[in-house]
């Protein structure tokens, strides 16, 4: 992807699937989100941590250990926990670089993980949101 800076380490990105306070799934290999994140030249933290399933209910400390620079969420998921302000209150999120710098990207639920003719557009939009906000 042309937009990813060539110098330095690639960005670490987490795709977090949240619903309310109780559902906190981190995407890993085979989730589709990993492919999206790799497509824009970043590192999927779920895969990097060594998660072995597509979505894993993770502990707050797993998020801190994963240390994502950016968190991607579904728009509905973000609103279910009270938006970006609510996300800051989730234990573990505020302690990541993404939480400290408030770098959260939310995307329409139907768009993010549905691979098809519009996938190119989605990747381009994601790259823009991440690298050139």
């Amino acid at each position: 992807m042309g937009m990813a800076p060539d110098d330095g380490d690639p960005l670490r990105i987490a795709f977090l699937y949240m619903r309310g306070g109780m559902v906190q799934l981190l995407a890993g290999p085979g989730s589709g989100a990993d492919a999206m994140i790799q497509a824009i030249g970043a590192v999927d933290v779920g895969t990097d941590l060594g998660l072995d399933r597509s979505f894993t209910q993770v502990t707050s400390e797993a998020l801190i250990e994963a240390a994502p620079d950016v968190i991607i969420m579904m728009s509905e998921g973000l609103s279910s926990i009270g938006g970006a302000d609510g996300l800051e209150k989730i234990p573990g999120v505020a302690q990541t670089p993404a939480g400290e710098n408030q770098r959260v990207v939310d995307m329409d639920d139907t768009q993010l993980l549905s691979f098809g003719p519009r996938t190119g557009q989605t990747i381009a939009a994601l790259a823009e949101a991440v690298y050139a906000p």
Partner: protein
Amino acid sequence: MSTEISTTAQHADQGTGDAAQTGSSRARRDRKTDIEARAGGSTAPVRARRARATLLIGGLAAALVLVTVVSAGRGQLEISPGEVTGSVMHRLDSGLEWLLTRVGITVDLPLDIGSLPSHAQGENTLWLVRFPRVVLAILVGAALATAGALMQGIFGNPLAEPALIGVSPGAAVGASLVFVTGASFLGEWTAPAAAFTTGLFATLLVYALSRSGGRTEVVTLMLTGVAVTAVAFALVAFNTFVANPEAREQIVFWQLGSLNGARWPAVNAVLPFVCVGLVVAVVLARSLDLLSLGDKAARHLGVNVERLRIVAIVVVAMLVGSGVAFAGVIGFVGLVVPHLMRMVAGPGHRVLLPASALGGAVLLVGADLVARTAIQYADLPLGMLTALVGGPFFFWLLRRTRSRAGGWA
């Protein structure tokens, strides 16, 4: 109560075994000693039991401190026990110094020992993520086990469990309704508040429905609980059915139980309920002991049985409701812990209730430690773990009681 009765029965059996004629008088004598012992005379069994009780409470308190320290030192983020201690001492030191400054004394206390966590987020992880979770585990565990002991006391039935009078099924109805409708009138507090309210409502409904002529029969109460629980599960099932996939996930995960996401505000919300519940429970202890003689006997001894029952039920609903509101459904703690404590300390509620509170806290802190560390990075369902350990253990308890004392019923 049940253990006491079976012990007495055993004495009688031994008596009749010796000689048929003297059997009954011997049994009577045994019973007399038993009564004297219970009246608080300085007989040897009483002293032994008291020593045992002190040992149990002390041991449990020590175990709780130990399991808390171990639990606080374990997690995905590596923070050594020394660093945990160092961090706590650092806060204690600055906190005390701040307090002393407020009253006009400026000193440099020598408490700031040990090293702080070396990880950049170590301090935050400890104080904002791990400690609230451990403290919530203590509170919820104590609440569930105390509620179980209270229930078994007021129903005089070893099978009584908070779930039986509809607290947790009722709470599940409120929580699932919030998830389905997406209601958010209280923000993040909506689901816990709804769960607490419906849990309390279901319990009061059970009580009101089973009451007739100013009295509540124990068996009727428990069977009404079964009926209300069935309806509650039906409502949860309906909510699960009509929910969209996302809400369905919330309902499912809520019913699995977890302490992930515990924060200090949740701890602060649960704390007053648990404290009030524990204090009232201990106040009720004497009346509960009298109630174990039977409703009629207790009434003759001046216990207002109906009032005792409703106060105890409200306390149980408060304890369990506040616990499940933030943690979801966590089963078997309320059933197993009191039984375990009764095996060691005997049936007297003045020891049983505090021992159960401590035991429940120890159990849940331990279970939660397993839930968040057994599989790297994953948060296992806490309710699953307690039931997985509690079920077989309860079965073993049943078999043991059966072979030793002829069972409970």
